């Protein structure tokens, strides 16, 4: 699959890494935002509710104090008034006088009416005057009796006035002479539906559609309420209010038909009363929302900006990679010459890009080697061909400019060069087969010593021509190997002729067989110029000889060593070299020993 196909196949799936990371971040950011909003909502709600309750509690306690003070005040007034109903501290004053005193007292506006009862509980004086209230017996009222019996002041529970029929609380004070005999009762009526105290309170307190209630819990009736119609009504069992009173806990409550309420409740100290404040829950939630919005108005934009910045930062981290990818794909699609990707940071991405650069360089290098090889091969083939063609052309000249002797030489030359060409071509084919793993070897068991002996014999004449002596030595005269005899001889011939080529005149070449438990080595040592360490590897490569790659091959095809190396490898052996400049060279062939069975 090439790049173009790859891209096409995955285009629809949109697998950009960067996009996926950005999406993940966006998702994370959204989650973060939602969590923030929820938690802010929650914590602010708690705080607001808490604060709400605290301020409610304060208010209610304050109200209780005011109501109790108010009643205290009224009680005091009556306590001061009571003696004024006496003459000489001994008997009650006349009704007319009573009226006058009470009239003045009424100016304080603390009571709607005053009534004075005699010692039997019958009304004998009042202000303002109401004819229905004359000579009425009040002794059936429990609180009247209590005063008469205990001779202590009393505050009644809420009742409907006998005469007025209005919801009232009565403040009663005994009228006592200086011997502590009860002479009468002074009563002041606090009008629940009109009394400024309660109205004042409920007006003050009404806000956000809430409700303020004061209950007498011992009698189960409403004393005061934002809704006047509730006054004196009994508290219904299982109603919202009844439940509140029963549980007497602060808390969020109650589903009414139309509303959810939260309430605060406090007990009075001097009376069996409670004061309740009901607030619709929407008040609190409104407040919460207000604060939340306020807070989020700042936080959310910050989170958003932060998110954007982080996203940009993350994308930028990937920029070198994307840039490099782009460059790489371009290179591949356009087959343009590879230009190294610039790497600015040694992180994972950077290292990947460096590795790619390295790979490309290696590939480039290999391409170059291949090209060089091809160039070398064509060159090597053309050279003998040149000679043959030129020779044939010259042979076709028959005008006498070329002598018979010269013609003979031209023919010999052609033969030499066509042999050379043939050799070269077979070597090239060998090498090609070897590198593709297609060379077929005919492996059989042979006595290595015999094979080497033959090779040394065959090359004797060449050695003599070059005035070089060859000696053969061996640990064993019988050592068996599994080889392709023809090919092994090819290798031996190559190494021996090399040794001869590179040996000075009158020098010696030593051929030694060394036998080991597992392997046998054939060593061919010459006394030539030697090969430096750095060139050891190079000489096994094709077409090279020591000096430089530009140097003319010193006879031969230049492929011999490369082929020898590969052939011995195919025979499970190894060709190696030991040499130092100026100290000659030793080429070695290692082969595994096989048993003679």
């Amino acid at each position, binding site marked *: 699959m090439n790049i173009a196909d790859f891209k096409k196949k995955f285009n629809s799936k949109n697998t950009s890494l960067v996009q996926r990371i950005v999406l993940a971040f966006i998702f994370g950011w959204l989650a973060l935002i939602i969590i923030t909003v929820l938690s802010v909502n929650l914590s602010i709600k708690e705080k607001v509710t808490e604060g709400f309750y605290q301020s409610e509690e304060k208010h209610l306690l304050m109200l209780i104090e005011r109501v109790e003070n108010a009643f205290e005040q009224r009680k005091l007034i009556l306590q001061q008034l009571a003696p004024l109903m006496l003459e000489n501290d001994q008997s009650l004053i006349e009704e007319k006088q009573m009226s006058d005193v009470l009239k003045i007292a009424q100016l304080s506006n603390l009571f709607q009416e005053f009534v004075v009862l005699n010692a039997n509980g019958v009304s004998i004086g009042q202000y303002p005057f109401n004819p229905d209230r004359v000579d009425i017996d009040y002794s059936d009222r429990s609180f009247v009796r209590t005063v008469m019996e205990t001779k202590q002041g009393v505050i009644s529970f809420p009742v409907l006035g006998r005469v007025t029929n209005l919801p009232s609380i009565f403040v009663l004070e005994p009228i006592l002479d200086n011997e502590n005999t009860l002479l009468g009762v002074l009563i002041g009526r606090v009008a629940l539906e009109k009394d400024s105290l309660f109205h004042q309170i409920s007006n003050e307190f009404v806000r956000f559609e809430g409700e303020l209630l004061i209950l007498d819990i011992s009698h189960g009736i409403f004393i005061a309420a934002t809704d006047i119609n509730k006054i004196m009504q009994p508290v219904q069992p299982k109603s919202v209010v009844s439940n509140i009173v029963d549980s007497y806990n602060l808390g969020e409550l109650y589903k009414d038909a139309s509303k959810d309420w939260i309430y605060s409740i406090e007990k009075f100290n001097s009376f069996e009363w409670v004061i309740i404040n009901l607030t619709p829950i929407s008040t609190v939630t409104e407040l919460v929302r207000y604060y939340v919005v306020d807070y989020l108005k700042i936080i959310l934009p910050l989170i958003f900006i932060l998110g954007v910045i982080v996203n940009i930062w993350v994308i930028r981290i990937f920029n070198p990679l994307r840039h490099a990818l782009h460059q790489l794909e371009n290179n591949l699609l356009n087959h343009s010459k590879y230009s190294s990707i610039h790497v600015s940071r040694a992180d994972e991405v950077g290292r990947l890009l460096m590795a790619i650069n390295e790979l490309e360089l290696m590939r480039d290098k290999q391409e170059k080697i291949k090209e060089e090889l091809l160039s070398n091969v*064509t060159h090597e083939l*053309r*050279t003998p061909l040149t*000679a043959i*063609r030129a020779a044939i*052309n010259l042979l076709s*000249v028959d005008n006498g*400019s070329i002598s018979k002797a010269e013609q003979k030489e031209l023919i010999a030359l052609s033969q030499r060069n066509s042999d050379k060409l043939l050799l070269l071509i077979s070597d090239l084919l060998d090498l090609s087969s070897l590198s593709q793993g297609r060379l077929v070897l005919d492996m059989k068991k042979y006595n290595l010593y015999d094979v080497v002996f033959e090779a040394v014999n065959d090359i004797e004449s060449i050695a003599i021509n070059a005035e070089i002596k060859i000696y053969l030595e061996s640990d064993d005269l019988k050592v068996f190997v599994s080889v392709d005899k023809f090919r092994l001889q090819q290798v031996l011939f190559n190494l021996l002729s090399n040794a001869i080529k590179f040996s000075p005149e009158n020098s010696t070449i030593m051929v030694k067989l060394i036998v080991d438990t597992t392997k046998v080595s054939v060593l061919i040592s010459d006394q030539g110029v030697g090969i430096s360490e750095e060139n050891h590897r190079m000489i096994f490569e094709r077409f090279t000889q020591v000096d430089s790659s*530009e140097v003319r091959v010193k006879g031969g095809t230049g492929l011999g060593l490369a082929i020898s190396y590969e052939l011995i490898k195919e025979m499970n052996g190894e060709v190696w070299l030991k040499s130092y400049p100026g100290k000659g060279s030793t080429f070695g062939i290692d082969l595994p020993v096989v048993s003679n069975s």
Partner: protein
Amino acid sequence: MKPLIFCIEDDLDIQFLLKLSLVNLGGFNVLFASDGNEALKLLDNAKPDLLIIDWMLPEMNGVQLLKKIRKNNDYSRIKSILLTAKTDIKIIIGDDCLLFDEVIIKPFDPLKLAGRIAKYLHI
């Protein structure tokens, strides 16, 4: 006076062919050297009119040799021909091609070689 062609070529067979082409067919005089050092030494005494230099020489290649030869004032403008079997020679030596008056890629036609050289000698 017959023009003297100085050939620096290490392959003896090619030397022989060149001799037949230039002397027998072309009527020139030839002088041979097998490598750069030998060539420079011979130049002390000889006075060639044209150089034929093979690219693949031992120890220094044809371009290096020509540059060395050109250092000598007498030969700074001597006509020269590069001979090589390397088909990609122009890639290998690049602009150095221009140092030579001609680049001949082997195989060369011996029957025509003399004619080509004559052109450079203004004959």
